[in-house]
């Protein structure tokens, strides 16, 4: 029974490619389940990246067509490898890139895919995926009909293990489909963080689209200042240009675990939740009583930000003598 684990790497501008922590966590989980496990590194000039996997078999496809972080040529490469190895299970750690590779591969191989997986277990010799569904209101044991099986693991589900030794690398070549190389990376922007990192803050006051406009963030900034905390944001407002990328909390942003997290006008999407559920205490203010954030906030207020937050700031200032 062969399991392949997609090992995602990131080329940092300073040079060198590093394997992502999430993929290494999935690799550790796969190894703990037993059977033949191999990692897969797909890229251009990534020979060194595989070293981060430790003593394990790693298939490497080094091809200029895999230079950009785009999914479709990676579907081709994995389909080639699955055909060659007869792999029965292909595992991915959730990321913007990996999700598209996994789902594209599912269609290519007519393979079942389970996503948002938080645990993998073998029961009576069968692989089962545990995945919370419907906004984490129910836990589903999901299985597969036949092979190959594909799973996309939720961010942060598995910790990487210390892995010593050097991998046994086997290079392979991939055929590319015509449609797979049509999309092209034409630009990249990396945003340098400014100010103190939200990852170190004890208190985070985070704002979402409920703030209504970029100026709305003043409410969060004043409350954060009164509490001696930092300001965080959702992807929706970061993508809309209301607040800097470096303050984004969630799957594609930062993972934070302050003592106190105050969510202002944030709906509580799973991708936001995975970045802040480790917070000590979560307070949420939202005008929609059905907002999913109330399912996991310790203290929820159904109300309008403009009514609640300024008063809260005033009371905190009075108490802290600010």
């Amino acid at each position, binding site marked *: 029974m062969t399991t392949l684990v997609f090992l995602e790497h990131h080329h940092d501008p300073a040079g060198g490619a590093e394997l992502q922590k999430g993929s290494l966590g999935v690799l550790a989980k796969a190894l703990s389940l037993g059977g033949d496990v191999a990692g897969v590194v797909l890229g251009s000039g990534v020979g060194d990246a595989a070293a981060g996997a430790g003593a394990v078999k790693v298939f490497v496809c080094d091809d200029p067509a895999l230079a950009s972080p785009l999914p479709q040529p990676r579907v081709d490469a994995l389909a080639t490898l699955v055909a060659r190895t007869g792999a029965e299970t292909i595992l991915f750690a959730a990321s913007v890139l990996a999700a598209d590779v996994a789902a594209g591969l599912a269609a290519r191989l007519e393979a079942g895919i389970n*996503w948002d997986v938080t645990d993998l277990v073998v029961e009576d010799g069968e692989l089962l995926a545990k995945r919370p569904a419907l906004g984490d209101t129910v836990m589903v044991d999901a299985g597969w009909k036949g092979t190959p099986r594909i799973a996309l693991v939720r961010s942060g589900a598995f910790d990487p293990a210390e892995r010593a030794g050097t991998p046994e690398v086997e290079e392979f070549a991939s055929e590319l489909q015509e449609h797979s190389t049509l999309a092209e990376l034409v630009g990249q922007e990396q945003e340098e963080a400014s100010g103190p990192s939200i990852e170190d803050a004890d208190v985070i006051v985070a704002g979402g689209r409920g703030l209504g406009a970029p100026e709305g963030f003043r409410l969060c900034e004043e409350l954060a200042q009164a509490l001696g905390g930092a300001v965080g944001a959702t992807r929706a407002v970061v993508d809309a240009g209301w607040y800097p990328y470096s303050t984004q909390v969630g799957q594609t942003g930062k993972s934070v675990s302050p003592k106190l997290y105050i969510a202002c006008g944030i709906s509580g999407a799973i991708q936001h939740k995975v970045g802040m559920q480790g917070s000590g205490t979560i307070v949420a203010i939202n005008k929609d009583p059905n907002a999913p954030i109330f399912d996991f906030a310790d203290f929820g207020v159904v109300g309008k930000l403009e009514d*609640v937050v300024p008063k809260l700031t005033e009371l905190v200032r009075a108490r802290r003598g600010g």
Partner: protein
Amino acid sequence: MKIAVCAKQVPDATVHKRIDPGTKRLDRTGEGALNPTDVNAVEEALRIKEARGDGEVVVVSLGPSRAMDSLRKALAMGADRAVLVADDAAAGSDLVATSYALAKALERESPDLVLFGQQSSDSDGAVLWAAVADRLRRPLISQVAHLTVGDGTVTGKRQTEFGYDVISAPLPAVVAVSDAINEPRYPSLKGIMGAKKKPAEELSLADLGIEADRAGEPGSRTTVVALGPPPSRGDTVKIEDDGSAASKIVEYLAEKRLL
């Protein structure tokens, strides 16, 4: 330019979503609504059409017959037509089966651009487009927060874990947009009235030449084995603001020694 928007009906946000323990499928009997992030995809399609001054926007969906009620919202916003693949034999379709049926419906339409929303509120997958793009053998750009359509090309800017990528692809292409891409319009009264007269077509699996073993449960490759309670989340409190919420938050934080 012909633009197809993939959109689905989901349980309305006010409905408590549940999986039917008997069928192990989502209970879809309650009130439905157009999936919130698909409204952004419809809006983006309308803006592209309006900017170019010509073209057609067709909404394509897989779901039960009653899903047409929700697709009418897209027509009321300004979409020209709706095509719904509705068939009892398609119930319980997973990603493999859903992507196959949608690809068949899209092949029939043969649009220049296929748009997807960010994620279905009932599946939280945010993955379907990649499967459909592979079946259609078209280039894909996903999670797009800013889209420009040029002559024969599309360019999208999207966020990743490391910053922003700008990706370009020739048409025909598949693009999935994020919910930050635009602020959707509300349908006007005139739009709502007009939507009733717009073409709304329902297709069966047979109409699209979809084999019975490639749809619904027979065509699916995943199974639900068991259902259980979610991980416990401890004690939670939820109050309605009556003017005193701020002081109640302060009391709560003081009690937890967080102030």
